[in-house]
């Protein structure tokens, strides 16, 4: 059992806790944007794709790097753009919501 593993495990567990708490109770209106917003965040796997470059030395390795990069890029770019487009519509008329009574922050 390496110290590195424990470190990563602790980071994992604490991040789970943050994830549980950060959502709070959100109005169902925001369920879809929230879903697509968090979807964009797991596009961070593109960083993983970048890291795999250092591992790729065989044709198969290159193919996998290419695959990982393509798929991840689609996720991260598409995810943020579509979320922004959606929220742009939501917030267009939203000043009212600024004084949202059940502010969960």
């Amino acid at each position, binding site marked *: 059992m390496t110290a590195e593993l424990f470190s990563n495990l602790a980071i994992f567990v604490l991040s789970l806790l943050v994830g549980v708490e950060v959502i709070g109770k959100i109005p169902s209106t925001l369920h879809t944007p*929230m879903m697509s917003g968090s979807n964009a965040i797991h596009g961070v796997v593109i960083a993983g794709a970048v890291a795999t470059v250092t591992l790729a030395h065989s044709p198969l390795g290159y193919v996998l790097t290419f695959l990982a990069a393509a798929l991840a890029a689609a996720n991260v770019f598409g995810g943020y753009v579509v979320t922004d487009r959606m929220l742009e519509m939501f917030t267009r008329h939203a000043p009212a919501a600024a004084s949202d009574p059940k502010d969960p922050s």
Partner: protein
Amino acid sequence: MTTFDFAVGVVYLAASTLFVVGLHLMRLPSSARRGNLISAGGMVVAVLATVVFSLHESGGSWIGWLALLFGAALGAAFGIARARTVKMTDIPQLVSIFNAVGGGAAAAVAFADFVQHTTGTALGLDSSIPIVLDVVIGSITFSGSLIAAGKLQGIISGSPITFPGARLVNVLAIIVALAAGVFAITVGNDVWLLAAVLVASLLFGVLLVLPIGGADAPVIVSLLNALTGLAVAMAGFAIDNQALIIAGALVGAAGTILTLQMAKAMNRSVAAIVLGGFGTGDSKSSAAPDAQDLSNVHQVSADDVAVQLAYAQQVIVVPGYGLAAAQAQHEVAELAKLLMTHGIDVKYAIHPVAGRMPGHMNVLLAEANVPYEQMLQLDEANVAFDNCDVALVVGANDVYNPDARKPGNPVSGMPILDVDHAKSVVILKRSMRPGYAGISNPLFTDPKTGMYFADAKVGLAAITAAVKEYVTA
């Protein structure tokens, strides 16, 4: 750990903090957009740090970098293009596709790590286990999400698909995945073992989602979103990258909570949904019952409705799935504008689960530039119905079904819009067919209800025309 690695790690922590702040701000409509941008900022930071890191490691060959760049360019182009052009109401299926690619990418990363080790150093349990888990979860989300997207898009039938022996295949897939996985972990370093895990998991993912009703798909998409997060976290363990672990776990947990909240709003249990079968999503399939029984149904025409509306002071529009299906948001907005120019007060009563995705109606009406103030949430709306002259229901069915107040039926206990409190009700839909829940609505045959059978788009246009006529005449 070199000082350099340390620095990269610290940057990762900063990026992760931005993700959290972003998600936090997304809990309020007013700050949501800013939140998303902040989270995007975190993403830029994380990726740049990784690029610097990889260059510094300089283990990669120029071919690898080329493959990366080409791949990224292609993916980015595809993602942005789809995101720019997608219809607002098709967002769930797009999110589902992004889940698929995300899961696929996670699996690919783990695979790459595994492959490299077959040629290089042997694998310790602390990376072989996450690798296998990553491939399993990643593949399931990949195939599962594609199926879910297909159902939402209507390419695959929304009704639950089951075939004899499905269970058996399922069990086989699981066994294969398990066996190959265990071997890959213990014996290790054989690409074919991992490939077997991959294939079996892909198959399992398909069989997992096929039997689920299309109307439940949004919930499944949200669930697969959480799973993708976990897959990414596993990839992080495999290649010892903290950004992946933190962001992945973050999405995994947040996505799970979100899924539970969604299911709650639809008063369905996630378990029930995953087991599938009840919701069908397209009303036709559940049409058979009293579809023809038009006795004691009071049918009305566009003109009748127009007159009724013209004489009203307080009109409340109740939009439902049908409005989305017919893409009639602009027509309804136009009618509302027209009425208001003649001093009639028009509001929209938005049920949290009206339509087929959470916030479906808000997205639609926002697209048609309906101002926020006019959209009443459940509670406000139910107050307003008490002195409402005409409730105009457009392509809705379950969200105001009074039977929800009685026990023992699919909608029992679901909070509903008290349309039956309005002085008079007009229901615009194509037929007597029920909706998502598959049960008829007693209001159809209520004396104060007029049924106007038409497609929502066509029907609303007709009513608008009739009103124009009537008021100018």
